[in-house]
Structures are given as C-alpha cells and as structure tokens.
C-alpha cells in the first residue's frame, strides 16, 4: 500500500513539511471564523488554484478525496435550502469543501519519508520520558508490512471456507484471523527482542585509546 501523496517534485513538494502544516493550521483556524460567502469563495478559489498548479493529476486526486463527503454536503445543502437559507447552504458547502481540499493538498504534496522525519523530530523531546525515538518509524513500517500480510491471510481463509461451503463466510472468519494474529504477535515480539528490542541499549562509553609510551 502506498501513501496518498502524489509522486513528483512540484513547488509544493519542495516546501518544508513543517511550513505546510503550520500554514494549514493557521488557514483552518481562520476559515472556521469566516461567515460570509465571499471570503469563503476566495479561499475556495485559492485552493482550486493550488490544485491547478499541480496539473491534471492533482485535480483528479483532489476530486477523489472530496467525493465521499459530497453526499453529506449535498444533504445539508438541500436541508438548508428547504429551511429557506440559501446563503447558509452556500457558506457551509464552501467552508467544508475548501477546508477539506486544503488539508488534502498538504497530504498530496508531502511524501511519507518527510512526514516521518518531521514526526521523529517532534518526538525527540519525549525520549527522556521513555518513548523510544525509533517507535513512530517502526510502527508505520510494521503496519505497512503487515497490512498486505493480513489481507492475504483473510483471502486465504475465505478461499478455504469457499472450498468447504456454499454459504457466505460472513464475519466468522475473523475468529481464526484474530487467533492467528495473536500468535503472530508473540513470534514478532520475540524477533524484535532478538534484534535489540524497542529501546536500544545505552551506548557504551567510547573506549579511550591508551597511548603507550
């Protein structure tokens, strides 16, 4: 499985991840206060401009991300119109779509390794409270590794079920799935421990070379 980030080196990809997150946070907080359609439309137009600068690929990815909320936005708009408040309908639709598009833009233009580097930087101060600095990267790496493994296992269990029964397996396959997962976890923990565990041992004092006369 891959990240949603678009491959490429657009101007937005080259900006530092921290800057993008900072600007996004400010923009989101600001947009939440806008009550008039005109400034919201401006934010929307600006966001559309950002996507246009990424080319057709960017536009398509943005549309895919917004599609799942369209029904709920549509529902609210119909409701608001029914209440006789077309202005409210416009404000609501513009705000939700603009904010979601803006946030998605950051996701689309920030590659995973850069995000991980940012998180590792942010996590460094917590090392003194016992949070292993490797933890975030290791978690994401293991998750990415195990999603396809578990997916294949669920498919195999489904095939095994189909070979024996004409009924649909339904959720019952989750029982063997969970049991095998718990067994995996033990073996995986052992493997991790064998490789030094989550908390790497304290580095030894550098041996000082004795200078012999």
């Amino acid at each position, binding site marked *: *499985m891959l*990240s*949603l*980030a678009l491959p490429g080196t657009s101007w937005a990809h080259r900006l530092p991840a921290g800057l993008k997150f900072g600007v*996004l946070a400010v923009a*989101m907080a600001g947009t939440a206060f806008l009550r008039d359609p005109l400034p919201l439309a401006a934010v929307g137009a600006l966001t559309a401009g950002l996507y246009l600068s990424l080319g057709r690929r960017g536009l398509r990815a943005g549309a895919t*991300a917004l599609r*799942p*909320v369209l029904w*709920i*936005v549509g529902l*609210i708009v119909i*409701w608001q119109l029914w209440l006789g408040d077309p202005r409210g309908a416009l404000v*609501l639709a513009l705000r*939700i779509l603009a*904010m*979601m*598009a*803006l*946030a*998605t833009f*950051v*996701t*689309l233009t*920030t590659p*995973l390794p850069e*995000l*991980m580097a940012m*998180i590792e930087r942010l996590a460094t101060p917590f090392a003194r409270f016992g949070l292993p600095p490797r*933890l975030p990267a290791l*978690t*994401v790496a*293991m*998750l*990415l590794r*195990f*999603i396809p*493994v*578990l*997916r294949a296992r*669920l498919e195999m269990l489904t095939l095994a079920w189909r070979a024996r029964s004409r009924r649909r397996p339904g*959720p019952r396959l*989750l*029982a063997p*799935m*969970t*049991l095998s*997962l*718990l067994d*995996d*976890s*033990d073996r*995986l*923990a*052992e493997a*991790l*421990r064998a490789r030094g*565990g*989550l*908390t790497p041992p304290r580095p030894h004092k550098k041996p000082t070379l004795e200078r012999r006369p």
Partner: protein
Amino acid sequence: MERNFTLIVLFAALIAVLGLVPPLMLPTGVPVSAQSLGVMLAGAVLGSKRGALAVIVIVAVVALGLPVLSGGRGGLGVFAGPTVGFLLGWIPAAFVTGLVVEKMRNAPVGVAAGAGAVLGGIVVLYLCGTFGMMAVLHKGFGAALGLSLPFIPGDLIKAVVAGWLVTVIARYRPSALLSRAE
C-alpha cells in the same frame, strides 16, 4: 513491552484490512463497513489501553496520508470533514469497549464484549461523531445525530458479532484474551 507493541500494531493492521472488505448492504441501503467491528474487537480482545493505542495508530497513519479508512479514504482532509468525530471517536470507543470487558469480570465474556461494543462502539462513538458533525456542519445536536441514525442498526449487528467472536476466541484460546488476563 515488545509484545504490547506488536499486538497494537497487528490490531491496527487488522482494522486497516477490515476497511478493504466490501461493505455489507442493509435492506435500507445503508452500507455497513467492517472497519468499526475491528475497533470493537481491538477493545474487547486487547483491553482498554492497548485497544485504544491500536486505534491511535490507525488515526495517526490516516493523518500521515495512508488510505487505510474504508473506501480508500485517508489524509488530512478527513480531519476537516464532517466525519472527523467518528474517526477520533474510535479511540474512546475502543477504550470503553475494553473497559467494560475488564470490569464485567463475572459476566460471560461474550455478553461483556457485546455490552462493551454497544456502550463504546455505539453510544460513545455516536456521541463523538455527533459532536464532530455539530462542529463542522454548525448544526444542533438533534440534527447532527439524525444524520447518523441510519447507521445504528448496522452497528448493533456488529456489536452482536463482536460478542460472538470474542466468545469463540475465549473458547479456543482463553489465554489470548488480554482484556480478561491478569
């Protein structure tokens, strides 16, 4: 430490994989995704703290832009959308589910898991989801709750399934049920 870590990561992976299972359609036409069943299971099997941590891992990788939510959704946009309360609500949902299983020690484990799934995976989750919608859509409590009511029958089915699954797990691998271990 390592064992807790691998359990949390593997259950997070399970929740992600359940998002890939095509949703079941209720007769009312409302899709029922298997993903929140994974959240209930994480709480009921791993217990409150580890269950909540497994969900935190999923929420974190959604923020990192991995398409791990059902329908291939993910990214920061989800946090700006109307369903943000349901995503963040998964964390207390798994926690409360696990807490109920831990506290109802004398009840049969399946009953406790089902009750936990109803309390955590439905009551707590829908409260969080409704607050999220109120914030994003600027609606009142009733209106926001009304938007999510059609999904409750599907979640009741999931709570029953979660209770039954936990019974099966407890029967074949009693030691695996960490929410009841000590």
